[in-house]
């Protein structure tokens, strides 16, 4: 539809902003690392203080990359859901995938006897146990959605079904929380805050690979997503195989939402807000060829900024990422929309 090159300026701006925020994110943290030291370390030169090296290379850089990948993937996932369901309130968790992950983690931490989960932990570690539980939970909901899709004919029914699965799993989690021990409850709640800094480099590679698959499917579906702008009937008349397309979009969304939830926990708001943000910034096109990559960059930028804020630079304390995303994001969107009306 529209030429990518026409939007070169906009993309340069986004990429430039992303780079700038990355520099800020890496140089700001609880421990004060001087900027020139940070640059030296990233370029591979040895430094005086090995602590700086450890913090930067083993903590801040993986965290920043995680933030960008997660933010971008959630943004794209949200965009796909918003276009497919023709609903601006849809987000990456609308199919209930993240709720499934929460159920898995809740079962691990609070459902089974506290002590048998100790056993799991002592064999593979708590973090991996949580990741596996979250993955299994998302996969369960994913299968349910697939089965439902085979029987459904339209997108609205699927949306309602996804929301219902989400409610159901949330209800079960509530019951589990009621019976959980104090420690287990606290662990669960803390998991639900999300955590970007818990991934090491090799895990990051795995996450990147998985997200790449999900993103590739979304990119492959760009043409169909454009056709879907007019709704399913017109899309079909333009040559879209609705059922095949539905499966592809569900697959892509489940991979993106499921993998991010499994590795970093549920991160709210970004998936919902990034598409709106981009749409407010570029109102001259709705072509997904432009909007999708822009939303990826926008989501990456948003989450990176939120992470920088959550670190409370200079302080020894940190804030949970989930609290920050809505705190910063919602006023931003409100501001932009109010400007728009004028």
């Amino acid at each position, binding site marked *: 539809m529209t030429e990518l090159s026409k939007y070169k300026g906009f993309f340069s701006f986004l990429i430039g902003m992303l780079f700038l925020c990355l520099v800020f994110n890496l140089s700001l*943290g*609880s*421990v004060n690392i001087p900027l020139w030291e940070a640059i030296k370390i990233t370029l591979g030169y040895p430094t005086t203080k*090995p*602590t700086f090296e*450890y*913090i930067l290379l*083993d*903590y*801040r850089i*993986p965290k920043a990359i995680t933030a960008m990948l997660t933010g971008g993937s959630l943004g794209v996932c949200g965009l796909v859901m918003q276009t497919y369901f023709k609903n601006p309130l849809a987000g990456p968790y609308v199919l209930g995938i993240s709720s499934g992950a929460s159920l898995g983690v809740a079962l691990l931490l609070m459902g089974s*006897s*506290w*002590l*048998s989960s*100790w*056993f799991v*932990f*002592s064999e*593979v*570690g*708590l*973090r*991996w146990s949580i990741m596996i539980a979250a993955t299994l939970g998302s996969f369960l909901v994913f299968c349910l959605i697939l089965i439902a899709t085979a029987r459904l004919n339209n997108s609205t029914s699927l949306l309602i079904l996804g929301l219902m699965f989400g409610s159901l799993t949330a209800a079960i989690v509530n019951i589990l929380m009621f*019976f959980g*021990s*104090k420690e287990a409850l606290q*662990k669960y709640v*803390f*998991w639900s*805050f999300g*955590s*970007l*800094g*818990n991934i*090491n*480099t090799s895990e990051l590679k795995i996450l990147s690979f998985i997200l790449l698959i999900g993103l590739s499917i979304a990119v492959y579906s760009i043409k169909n997503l454009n056709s879907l702008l007019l709704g399913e009937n017109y899309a079909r008349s333009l040559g879209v195989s609705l059922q095949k397309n539905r499966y592809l979009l569900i697959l892509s969304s489940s991979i993106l939402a499921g993998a991010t939830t499994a590795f970093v*926990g549920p991160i709210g708001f970004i998936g919902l807000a990034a598409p709106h943000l981009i749409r407010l910034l570029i109102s001259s096109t709705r072509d997904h060829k432009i909007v999708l990559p822009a939303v990826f960059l926008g989501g990456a930028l948003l989450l990176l900024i939120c992470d920088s804020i*959550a*670190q409370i630079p200079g*302080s*020894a*304390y*940190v804030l*949970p*990422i989930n609290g920050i995303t809505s705190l910063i994001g919602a006023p931003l969107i409100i501001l932009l929309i109010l400007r728009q009306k004028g």
Partner: protein
Amino acid sequence: MKLKINCNFDAVKRINTLLILGLLLIGCSQTSTKINSTNSTRYAQGFSIENKNDHKILSLKNTLPGSSKIFRYLIISEEAKIPSTLNYDGIIRTPVKRIVATSTTHLAFLEELNATENLVGFPQTDYISSVQIRKKIDAGKVVDVGMSQQLNVERILEVDPDILLSFGVDQIDNSLKRFNRMGIPTAFIGEWNEQNPLGRAEWIKVFGLLLDKEKEAFEFFDNTEKKYLEAKKSTLKIKSKPTLIAGAIYQDAWYLPGGNSYLAKLFEDANTNYLWRDNNQTGSLALSIEVVLEKGKDANYWFAPGQHTSYSILTAEHALYSKFEATQKRKIFTYARSKGSKGGIIFFESGACHPDLVLKDIIHHLYPNLEPDYIPTYFLPLND
């Protein structure tokens, strides 16, 4: 169901509420921060025992943070008459024969006083490590009374205890009233609220009082105190203090004990430099991982790394763990490896009762040459 309580309890309380409030207000200055410890406590701040002619008064401080309420219990023998002058939050006839406890720490105290036979009910018995009590559980003699936050009232009534040992916190007034109405006095055992290790052990005196075994309890505590102080003294000859870190990462923060906490006090008494001893918190701190790395990277020792039991899992959990000197030099010690048959951690059960052993464990790992043949009970080195 036997009613051991004066049925007029509630009515009398209503009439005398204002009087009591007035008395409490007057006595507030004395009792606001801690119970007057002249009577029988040397370290514990959560209880005090007053000896009267034919009865005793046990005062227990409310464990709710910021509260200055004190619960007073009349401790009186089976046959004696209840003096009707004052109100009590509970009347306990000694010796108590049927006990429902709610924390494994209570069981350790019972075991020391040879009173495990008196245990009739406990919530979620899997947590219990004590071999003796496990035998009782297997014989079906200990009733599972639900969950510690949500005790099953019917089960408790069925078991018909003489006393319910709660650990308090939020639902204090509710459960007190509820079980009192049913004739079961509830005592809030707040040993966990003591930051001084000897203060925690001193709560055995409360158990001694309830079981009519005060002499044994006092003897046990004096002995424990002696051994603790001896152990503490033995470290004074060490010239250079080793540095120490504690805690572990969960999600995005490192949780470690505050400078005024129970563990911090143990580290202090072991003559170490716990790197956060200057902090004045009694609870746990949630700090940025970067800060802990910067300050504690070169610490000599690392105690209580959360639930970790092996170096392989520890280093896999977070990239920064392996950067600590304590990890590289294999100087990490945990309480998570000593478990009961069903997985309950022994430190959480009998650690409070044996601060001398806890301290000696720590000292042994810090300075193995002091007593090469010592076998630690609670703290063990991490597995590979």
